């Protein structure tokens, strides 16, 4: 049922795919952050950043 896929030039392709995935995720995240609406930006910026000495809001 399943066939093994053997790529002739896997050594050249696999690292490039890995880089491409990483780059894409980074790019998408960056673009999303840039395109956020101002109030949404503010809401996310105000998320608590693990302040151990501040009780979190219920």
């Amino acid at each position, binding site marked *: 049922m399943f066939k093994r896929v053997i790529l002739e030039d896997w*050594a*050249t392709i696999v*690292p490039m795919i890995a*880089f491409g995935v990483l780059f894409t995720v980074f790019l998408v995240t960056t673009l999303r952050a840039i395109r956020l609406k101002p109030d949404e930006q503010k809401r996310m910026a105000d998320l608590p950043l693990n302040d151990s000495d501040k009780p979190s809001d219920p």
Partner: protein
Amino acid sequence: MNTATAKTTTITYDDRTVRQFMIASIVWGIVGMLVGVICATQLSWWQMNGKFIETITGGLFKGEGLQYITFGRLRPLHTNAVIFAFVGNMAFAGIYYSTQRLCKTRTASDLLSKIHMWGWQLIIVAAAITLPAGLTRGKEYAELIWPINIAVALVWVIFGINFFWTLAKRNEPSLYVALWFYIATIVTVAMLYIVNHLSIPTSWIHSYPIFGGLQDGLVQWWYGHNAVAFFLTTPILGIMYYFLPKAANRPVYSYRLSIVHFWSLVFIYIWAGPHHLLNTSLPRWLQMLGMLFSLMLWAPSWGGMLNGLLTLRGAWAKLRTDPVIKFFAAGITFYGMATFEGPLLSIRAVNALSHYTDWGIGHVHSGALGWNGFMAAGMFYWLAPRLWKTKLWSSSLANMHFWVGLVGILLYVTAMWTAGITQGLMLGEVAEGGTTLKYEFVETLKAIQLPYILRSFGGGLYLLGFFFCALNIFMTARSGKATDDTVEVAVPEKTYDRLRFGEALFSDPVAYCVAALAMMILWFFLPPHADKAALLATILLVIKAVRVFKAKGGAWDQWHESLLRNYLPFTLLTFIAVAIGGSVQIVPSLLVNREKNIEGRLQELYTPLELAGRDLYVSEGCYNCHSQMIRTLMPDVMRYGRAGVKDDFSHLGESLYDYPYQWGSKRTGPDLAREGGNFVQGSDKVRSGKRDNKWHWFHFMNPRWANDDSNMPPYPWLYEQKTDFKSLPNKIAVQRQLGVPFPAWTKDEIDQQAREQGMAIARSLFEGSSPVGYEPMKGASTEELVRHFSESQVVALIAYVQKLGTYHEIHKDGPPAAVPLDPDSYRNVTDKTKAFGKGETSANP
């Protein structure tokens, strides 16, 4: 100026020196990074080695390349500028600022501060002139020529005197954590720098290091690795311990963690140098020791990172608004990532893939750009408003710097990971059947061109960020006024600095550490079974020490507290901690790995002309792209070894007379260890290896002639410039002093040999069935060409390249005997180690 009263005194800090160092750091940082970006582009476009000037000058400059800006010469300029000029000046700024405040006193001597500041800048200028001129010692980060080395040592000593004098004058009894790291930096860098730069001059601009071959490699990486440790890490950790709590307005997370972090870091780091020489002909026990300590190093490094990041507990909200905290938090995070990656790369199996590739380049840049660069920027943005008594000119520009720099680093590092892993995998791939390699070297180079371009872009972004920083600091300075802080401090009663060395040294903590270490070292060196007893004794001592600590921990704490109130015993113990690792590795190697103990391959001596060629190879910085060390790995041997020769990796005896060693760290081009070969038929002066002399002639002239995809620069000046025959007698005399068994030739004999060999090689080029040509001397007769080129640098370099990898066999009767201080000689635990001992290759290290 001190105006003493009964209990308090008024101190005016010397902030002028801090401002000067900070400005110098920014200026040199931009220069160093710009050179780095140029170097990066040279790997994608060979024209960047000088040909591009033809285009931008509209043809005023004509030439295929410019010798002063080839990659081989610029890369050392980049590394030296970034390490010593950018980070060095930044560290000095941080040290001068924080030491005065931590000691509650002005720096001891304004004169020494000035000499330090201006002396250091002069050294940098000297480096910027000499390195592009091809004046180099040929060892990474230790390239500067010997007169500059002496200047560096003197300025460093002046810095040390000034610093310790300030400690002696302090008005704060106890030394804060940051000062411990500064002490370790000053003491250790002095030790490393002096030992690795020990040389015998042959002229005002040239010297040979006193170590050769593998000993030179070992000493070099003891220095090189610990330049990272004690120049790029410990001073910046000290800066982190001072500036981060200031910026976050929180105390350091854990004082006890600081103590453990400091002592374990300074002790362990120094042992890890051999991880730069894994799978080479370095003795196996040294490789194992280097790998083991590198893995252990992960713990103290992360101790430092956690202490930094956890200091930010409760201050994370500032991350949104304060660019200083942004830079510090990201810098410490990069430190954590780089110090996780370091031990990972030190595992022999991982190193088999990563070594000589761009993975190493990515690793060092996550440290240099992320840790050093971001900590520097954070410190600058914190300092500038205080040094000029104003507000930071633009917080949003600082934020912009952060994001542009961060994207630059991420692009750079990920591109290098991709390039390194791709190339490492490709170089090791075998074709179907497993008897041949799948890819030519140049194919692997071609495959990583996209990441190379992305790296240049990432580096360019990072550089742009520092332009923002320079503008911001400049405008901040303009908007304020240079001011030196004046404070009133209490003068404590002098109850500190009274501890005697004996009291510091003869104590439980020191006794247990020394005894356990002595047993551990015996465990390395004792023969089988006795070593197990030493290991057992080590374990028992550690158990006993833990129990004593549990019972009398308070006394140990008190001892350490008293040590912190006495800077000289503290400094002595720090020195002992850092001196142990180097001694245990280097001394046995100097005693054992010598010509008299060599069995098997021993390299052939260079002729005078070949030695001149070797010095040209060093001078052009060829080691920046080519190694001369075929590792004990099957793909390496298949690729760079010779067909039909068994175990054709580089053996220990094959580089014994190489001053300096030229194993390199990065292969942008193929390994050259087997480039040479035997004499051609009927000659005792002309050799021909993998390729003949004519091939090398055309290849140096235009590497694209040999391969369209080569990124090697052309070397047209080698055809015009003459070999320096005059210096050869001196050079050979120095090599004889160093133990190279040259015969006692007279000056005339040396000159005659060099010229005769030059003539013979030139004839091999211009005579025979298909002579080479030389466009600028189109009308010249064969005899004129032979005479001209017999003295040319290209012929000397060809002579050297054709000698590479030649050796003769040394046979000794009977089985190999155990050699004291050489654990490899009597520890054959398994068949595999036995195979390594015999020097057999392994496809799976």
